[in-house]
């Protein structure tokens, strides 16, 4: 096994910095990237024939984005880069990948998973109506394709991304009809102490809100989402309840929604890493030490796929995971390097916890979703069916509920509905959400093309 390469999965901030550190130590890692171009989601690149400058795409983060992209280009001759390639499974000899329709097995000595995160979604009646997107999707449309999801979108959910995306739409000329945040102003103040550790980031957020307000965009706090309305199968309005309990509605032609992030943890699960319930983010995640080591000696994690701390933390965590790999394979690592990274990450940890407190996952909404609300958008499994699994069919945890009434059985494997389905199950059984467990991962973690051929 000595000659097997180290694999880095993901080429966002964490994956890029991990690969860079490995190259510095003289290794030639394999970097597997699901996207066609390096950058991950946050620093996602536009297609090569697009012309907008970095400032336009990444705003205050332009310098970091550019540094990450140019550093990666420098790395290219020293790594085995495999863009457009998805890791979908694990075999005894390595990771199963697919590129277009060619399947391959890639053996490894160690693997650093930097798989990132997707939006955390709380369903709402009407959310499968065309014109409804995740917040991340609304941002990708703008950043990577120079498109707005509509001319007058509503952004609904909670978290810093809500205001960033709304602000980016304002600047692009698609003025938001409203920003609806489930977090109240008092709740946000409570998280401020932890967030104060990164004053610049807070200041940016405040600026986005101020710019939006100045442009006449209404920012509503402490709302309860009720429905995405439609006419002719197209988003026409959002209905919500305000803090005083009054029914409100705003007309719009698109909705971007999201309640923070959820880590992509399927690969760690397939690799049999142990999981733990993270009380701060209210979700299950693989167990990692502060260097990114999992409970399996050859598997390491970095970035939002391990701990939801954002892009700056991901860069540090990527480098740190690479240091851990190097240390564990007999290289000497300067203590100052790891100490410095730990220090950086301690600030990010405080900040991340502050954010989670200021913009909490609105778990309570799950209990009041009407029975006919679609939760699983793959197979149209409703909240009522999950409650039937909880009650009449007596499913004590998610995998049993999935077997009985299919939430999370669809082809997205519960990426969109899993966390909300768990909340519905837990609420119906009147137990804390950790007690209903998490959906077990099954390969392929993303659907494979029907006509796959195995690489010879």
């Amino acid at each position, binding site marked *: 096994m000595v000659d097997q390469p180290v694999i880095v999965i993901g080429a966002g901030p964490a994956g890029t910095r991990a690969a860079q550190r490995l190259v510095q130590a003289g290794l030639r890692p394999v970097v597997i990237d699901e996207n066609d171009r390096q950058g991950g989601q946050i620093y996602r690149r536009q297609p090569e024939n697009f012309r907008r400058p970095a400032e336009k795409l990444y705003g205050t983060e332009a310098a970091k984005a550019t540094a990450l992209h140019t550093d990666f280009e420098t790395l290219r001759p020293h790594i085995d880069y495999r863009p457009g390639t998805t890791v979908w499974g694990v075999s005894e000899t390595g990771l199963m990948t697919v590129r277009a329709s060619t399947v391959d097995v890639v053996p490894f000595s160690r693997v650093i998973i930097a798989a990132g995160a997707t939006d955390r979604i709380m369903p709402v009646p009407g959310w499968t109506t065309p014109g409804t997107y995740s917040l*991340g999707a609304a941002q990708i449309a703008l950043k990577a394709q120079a498109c707005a999801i509509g001319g007058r979108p509503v952004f609904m959910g909670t978290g810093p991304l809500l205001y960033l995306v709304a602000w980016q739409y304002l600047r692009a000329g698609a003025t938001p009809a409203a920003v609806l945040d489930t977090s109240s102003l008092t709740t946000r103040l409570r998280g401020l102490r932890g967030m104060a550790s990164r004053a610049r980031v807070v200041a940016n957020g405040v600026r986005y809100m101020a710019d939006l307000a100045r442009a006449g965009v209404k920012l509503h706090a402490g709302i309860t989402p009720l429905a995405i309305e439609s006419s002719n199968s197209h988003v026409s309005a959002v209905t919500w309840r305000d803090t005083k309990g009054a029914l409100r509605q705003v007309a719009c032609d698109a909705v971007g929604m999201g309640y923070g992030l959820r880590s992509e943890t399927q690969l760690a699960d397939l690799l049999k890493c142990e999981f733990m319930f993270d009380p701060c983010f209210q979700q299950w995640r693989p167990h990692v030490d502060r260097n990114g080591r999992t409970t399996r000696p050859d598997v390491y994690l970095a970035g939002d796929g391990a701990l939801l701390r954002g892009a700056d933390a991901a860069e540090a965590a990527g480098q740190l995971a690479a240091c851990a790999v190097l240390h564990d394979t007999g290289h000497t690592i300067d203590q100052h390097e790891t100490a410095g990274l730990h220090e950086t990450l301690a600030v990010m940890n405080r900040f991340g916890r502050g954010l989670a407190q200021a913009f909490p996952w609105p778990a309570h909404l799950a209990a009041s979703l009407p029975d006919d609300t679609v939760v699983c958008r793959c197979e149209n499994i409703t909240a009522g069916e999950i409650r039937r699994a909880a009650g009449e069919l007596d499913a004590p945890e998610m995998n049993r509920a999935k077997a009985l009434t299919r939430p999370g059985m669809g082809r997205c494997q519960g990426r969109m509905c899993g966390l909300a389905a768990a909340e519905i199950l837990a609420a119906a059984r009147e137990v804390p959400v950790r007690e209903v467990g998490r959906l077990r991962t099954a390969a392929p973690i993303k659907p494979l093309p029907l006509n796959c051929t195995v690489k010879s």
Partner: protein
Amino acid sequence: MPALFRRVAEKDRKTIHLFVDGHEIEAREGDTLLVALLTRTDRLRHNEFDASPRAGFCLMGACQDCWVWTEAGEQLRACSTTAQSGMRITTTEVPWLINR
């Protein structure tokens, strides 16, 4: 059908042509299939279980709610596939290929 997406910049890219359900459409070089379609229309596909119209959701290859097919039966995620000149796409799975 009104378009769902609107272009806000990068409008002077080269025009390409592809076929969707047999009709020729115009797109721009660098468009994803999802953008090529949704800048002209308001849906990508229909859900297999209740036939409701869908237009993708995550744009990052996670939700799988943007599948379209080539006329040869190859399934594609519209959000993560670049539109190519001359591509022939169908928004419903070609019936004679379903039960292979």
